[in-house]
């Protein structure tokens, strides 16, 4: 570690809490959201410095990109009820509490064991038997595959709940304003590029950083762009869309249940087949994750209702 490395890490580590603080204290919401997106960028750099390349991939895609867009999606609707600061007493109380928590947690963190391999060694020993050569994919889809099974259920439940609260008349896609020339050509480039990148990332996932979540969120980013620009209407709940929504969870549940029928534990893939099965699972998950992430977005930007005055006046 040279001085430059240290400075680089130091600057990154200092920027993160600073920007985070900026997000929660910014005077307006669009500023806060923009800083949040910037925070995502900077954290992706931090993940890269910490050799967490998979996390950096997901952060770049889901963490900042799609989350930022999601937060923005509510902005036009909620904008009028902005800037109601909480009372000074509450802020002071929370501030004092927070200072205490920060110092306490900080001291605790710095006193953690300085060197610990965690489960790294155990993962490396068992990776040959698992369904993937990349340690993180192996943990996600094999060693701790059960976590991921529940996580996919979380995604699906969130998608169903989002559909449930959306007003029916907002569901059919409204085509937005006509797409401008540069935007159209950009989209023409984006769609094929996204598909290629997503396919590449799924393939990489079996032996290198990459995988279903990364690929799915790239595809979703492309889908969301098409939807936001009015190029494509919002997804309707046709049979095909529903099939795509549940495909990942269905394959996962089948893979979890099949070994039970043979008297094994759940998710205990037959070992020679573990690799292909995990790859098939990744493909199914990619499709589902992409579609689910797209359903998180409203069809076209919701405009606040026109003031009720028009209806009230005789």
């Amino acid at each position: 570690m040279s001085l430059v490395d240290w400075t680089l890490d130091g600057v990154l580590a200092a920027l993160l809490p600073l920007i985070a603080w900026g997000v929660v204290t910014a005077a307006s919401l669009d500023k806060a959201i923009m800083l949040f997106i910037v925070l995502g960028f900077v954290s992706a750099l931090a993940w890269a410095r910490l050799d967490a390349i998979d996390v950096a991939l997901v952060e770049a895609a889901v963490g900042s990109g799609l989350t930022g867009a999601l937060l923005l999606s509510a902005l036009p609707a909620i904008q009028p009820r902005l800037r109601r600061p909480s009372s000074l007493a509450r802020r002071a109380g929370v501030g004092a509490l927070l200072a205490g928590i920060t110092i306490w947690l900080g001291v605790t963190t710095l006193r953690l064991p300085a060197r610990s391999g965690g489960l790294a060694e155990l993962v490396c020993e068992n990776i040959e038997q698992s369904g993937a050569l990349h340690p993180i994919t192996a943990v996600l889809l094999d060693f701790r595959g059960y976590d991921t099974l529940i996580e996919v259920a979380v995604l699906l439940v969130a998608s169903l709940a989002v559909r449930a609260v959306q007003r029916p008349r907002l569901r059919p896609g409204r085509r937005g304003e006509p797409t401008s020339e540069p935007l159209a050509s950009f989209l023409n480039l984006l769609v094929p590029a996204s598909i290629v990148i997503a396919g590449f990332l799924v393939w990489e996932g079996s032996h290198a950083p990459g995988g279903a979540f990364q690929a799915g969120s790239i595809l979703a980013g492309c889908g969301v762009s098409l939807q936001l620009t009015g190029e494509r209407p919002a997804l309707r709940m046709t049979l095909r869309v529903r099939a795509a929504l549940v495909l990942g969870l269905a394959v996962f549940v089948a893979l979890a249940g099949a070994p039970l029928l043979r008297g094994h534990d759940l998710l205990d893939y037959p070992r020679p087949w573990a690799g292909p099965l995990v790859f098939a699972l990744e493909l199914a998950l990619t499709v589902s994750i992409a579609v689910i992430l797209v359903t998180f977005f409203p069809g076209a930007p919701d405009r606040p209702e026109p003031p009720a005055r028009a209806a009230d006046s005789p």
Partner: protein
Amino acid sequence: MSVWMLYGAAAIGVFSAGVFGAFGATTHVVRRVLGVNIMGGGVFLLLVASARRAPSAIPDPVPHALVLTGIVISVSATALAMAIARALSVTRERDSPAPPRDEPPR
């Protein structure tokens, strides 16, 4: 002092900022959701930083996998929160004849 400690301390700072956003700053839905997301970011940073303590060259992959799961879960929750916020703003008072007894989270 080592690199992971640097990021570990930063993680705690981020987490606290998130708590402030969720509880203490302006009580607006989007701000709270931002706060919750930042809290999550702090936890994830601590997990990834602590994975870097491994004596070998490869960091511990388990916390990385946990963080990936965590990020996906927080996106799902954020999506649901934003969808409800959008629905609330569209629903306005007009749709519910009685004035709401319980104030929406501001």
